[in-house]
């Protein structure tokens, strides 16, 4: 059989159609397409892809199971390392991880590992065979831990993963979540068209079935403190509260009406379902002309969301160059297809208003200079190049820092200057019995890294509790 050089394409909604709805863009592989793609895998002995995966999913093994027609087995292999495969198959930056080191990728396109992961996860989810097998659960149980209490703060990917593993060890796990819904960024940040919320629901349902109790509307640090959790009999605490504090540009006009942080804009639309306004009662105002400042995943999500809400002209305004945009290439490509205009090498210097509302943004053109500490060429302003972009809405998507609400209300918890919690290799913090992981430790990163940290923490919490009961 001739070698297929390119990835098997995945069918998706046409751009002109999808900008009118919030439905998921790609449709996923059919059974046949999945097998065709799986057969491209060379089954390399040294398995570089496994090394490239932050949680070391046995990639060639699950791909082999797809070829063998045992998709359920493929699902169990995935689940053994990745608690949220249907999510990761959709949002992981595989092009920087497993697919980046795939041997097929040296001369051709790499194996579409992400698409296959998604296919396997969806296949099993649809058939209800996505749960860990009874045998697997039995294997993980630690009798000494049975019934002892462990607390998890935050129901994002880090917290959900930690909670699932802790429950599998036999612990009595409670998750405390500040919002009225679970999922963290998966719920309030990443839009429906990229990650349907019913998938998040099903993943959360599976975690509940493991016996995890989820208490919503509890802001730890306010409603209850870490010390009070220990006083209530929790023997360990995992902190996975993410990086939720939005950064602003600190330029004039940022408090005008019509300027949103990406967090606010996406939360209104995703969590509060403003795209179904007025049926859902939370409004969002986009107008005709929208600029999103920044070029990461968050910026692409905000821009594509604005388009779907009916904005005519949507711009990405970014002070660096194309090759420096941090968003996943797939998302940049999707955004371009949907008619988002990229105003690169432009730095916003002021937002001007009329009657208290955004009217235009003043941008200064930039050029690339010498490399900076991060190895990227530094953008330098071009004198006298300021110009005006007429706008109704500005969305600031230049990153988030950890929210100090919990850390500032927790005694003896060491943090870094930018607010991140300090941990050792075991994800343990400066306090005994308190572990942390995900964006609150690394700063805004990825779903899979947050999950990996949750997993590592769960394992070390297990060891800690076993050690503790020996004393």
């Amino acid at each position, binding site marked *: 059989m001739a070698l297929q050089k390119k990835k098997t394409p995945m069918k998706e909604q046409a751009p002109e159609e999808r900008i009118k709805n919030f439905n998921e863009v790609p449709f996923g592989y059919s059974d046949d397409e999945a097998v065709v793609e799986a057969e491209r895998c060379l089954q390399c002995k040294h398995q570089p892809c496994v090394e490239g995966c932050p949680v070391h999913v046995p990639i060639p093994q699950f791909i082999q199971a797809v070829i063998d027609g045992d998709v359920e087995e493929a699902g169990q292999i995935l689940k053994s390392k990745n608690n949220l495969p249907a999510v990761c198959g959709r949002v992981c930056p595989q092009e920087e991880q497993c697919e980046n080191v795939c041997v097929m990728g040296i001369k051709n396109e790499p194996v579409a590992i992400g698409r296959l992961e998604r296919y396997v996860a969806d296949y099993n989810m649809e058939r209800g065979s996505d749960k860990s097998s009874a045998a697997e659960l039995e294997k993980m149980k630690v009798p000494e831990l049975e019934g002892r209490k462990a607390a998890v703060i935050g129901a994002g990917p880090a917290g959900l993963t930690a909670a699932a593993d802790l429950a599998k060890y036999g612990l009595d796990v409670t998750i405390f979540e*500040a*919002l*009225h819904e679970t999922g963290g960024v998966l719920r309030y940040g990443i839009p429906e068209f990229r990650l349907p919320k019913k998938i998040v629901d099903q993943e959360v349902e599976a975690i509940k079935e493991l016996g995890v109790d989820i208490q*919503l*509307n*509890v*802001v730890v640090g*306010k*409603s*209850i403190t870490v010390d009070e959790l220990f006083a209530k009999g929790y023997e360990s605490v995992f902190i996975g509260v993410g990086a*939720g*504090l*939005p950064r*602003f540009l*600190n330029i004039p006009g*940022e*408090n*005008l*009406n*019509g300027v*949103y*942080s990406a*967090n*606010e804009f996406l*939360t*209104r639309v995703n969590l*509060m*379902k403003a795209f179904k*306004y*007025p*049926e*859902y*009662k*939370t*409004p969002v*105002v986009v107008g005709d002309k929208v600029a999103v400042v920044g070029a990461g995943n968050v910026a692409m999500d905000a821009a594509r969301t604005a388009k779907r809400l009916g904005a005519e002209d949507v711009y990405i305004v970014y002070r660096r160059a194309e090759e420096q945009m941090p968003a996943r290439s797939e998302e940049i490509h999707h955004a371009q297809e949907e008619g988002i205009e990229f105003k690169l090498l432009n730095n916003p210097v002021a937002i001007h208003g009329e009657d*208290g*509302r955004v009217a235009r943004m003043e941008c200064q053109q930039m050029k690339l200079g010498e490399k900076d500490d991060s190895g990227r060429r530094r953008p330098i302003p071009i004198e006298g190049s300021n110009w005006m972009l007429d706008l109704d809405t500005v969305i600031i998507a230049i990153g988030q820092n950890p*929210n*100090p*609400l919990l850390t500032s209300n927790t005694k003896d918890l060491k943090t870094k200057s930018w607010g991140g919690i300090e941990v050792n290799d075991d994800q343990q913090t400066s306090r005994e019995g308190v572990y942390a992981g995900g964006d609150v430790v690394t700063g805004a990163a990825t779903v899979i890294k947050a999950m990996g940290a949750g997993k590592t923490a769960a394992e070390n919490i297990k060891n800690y509790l076993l050690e503790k009961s020996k004393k």
Partner: protein
Amino acid sequence: MYEILEKEVLAPTITKLKVKAPMIAEKTKPGNFIILRVDEKGERIPLTVADYDRETGVISIIFQEVGYSTKLLGKMDKGDQIQDIVGPLGHHIDLEGYEKVVLLGGGSGTALLYPKVRGFYEQGAEVISITGARTKNLIILEEELEKYSDRLFIATDDGSYGHHGYVTDILKDLMEKEDDIDLVVAIGPVPMMKAVADMTKEYGIKTIVSLNTIMVDGTGMCGACRVTVGGERKFTCVDGPAFDAHQVDFEELMNRLNFYQNEEDLVHDTAVEEDK
């Protein structure tokens, strides 16, 4: 779900609800607020905790029906369930270190003022309360304020009760006559708070206002509640809701509060349609 245990209509469009929320009741202090969602499709609205009972685990909220969501909440009754309540949020007010405090409440702002009146009184400060409204039947919590104030003044715009005029008239009078006031607290419509701030600045009296900005999460995650205080950006939900009145940019605050006015009207019109 949080059950409504009692409902009391304090004035036309001003309602008090007692709700079972033990975790919140246990931790609330004067100045804290909660965010609630009436039902599955509701928006998240911030409301001050007007009263709390740690023993019974009950909190009271008092609200004026101004928009769609507060109207919906106003329609709820004893026995009904509120979808979500989260709190206590925000900083509580530091009650210590003051000997003579004047507290002003305008309209439904009086509901927000009441827990502070009680707080300062129980702390041992001399408490002077001033409450005002458009007309007599909009004056709320008179009995409660009476109980926890050394002196209580009432003003109505139309003169139907108490002083004929504004709460600020009474404040001015007090400041003229008594020079030992060490704190003024004002809660109410933005123009009223701004007027108080301008007046007390002249007399050099420390003044605190509590801001009712638009909010979404209430935990510092979205920035919808941002205000400028002393030239710096603050998030009302986590840095406030109380701020030094002499530092607040009231113009900006007023502008931001009006942002969703058109949408509010739309939701309201739809609701009227649905009711038909």
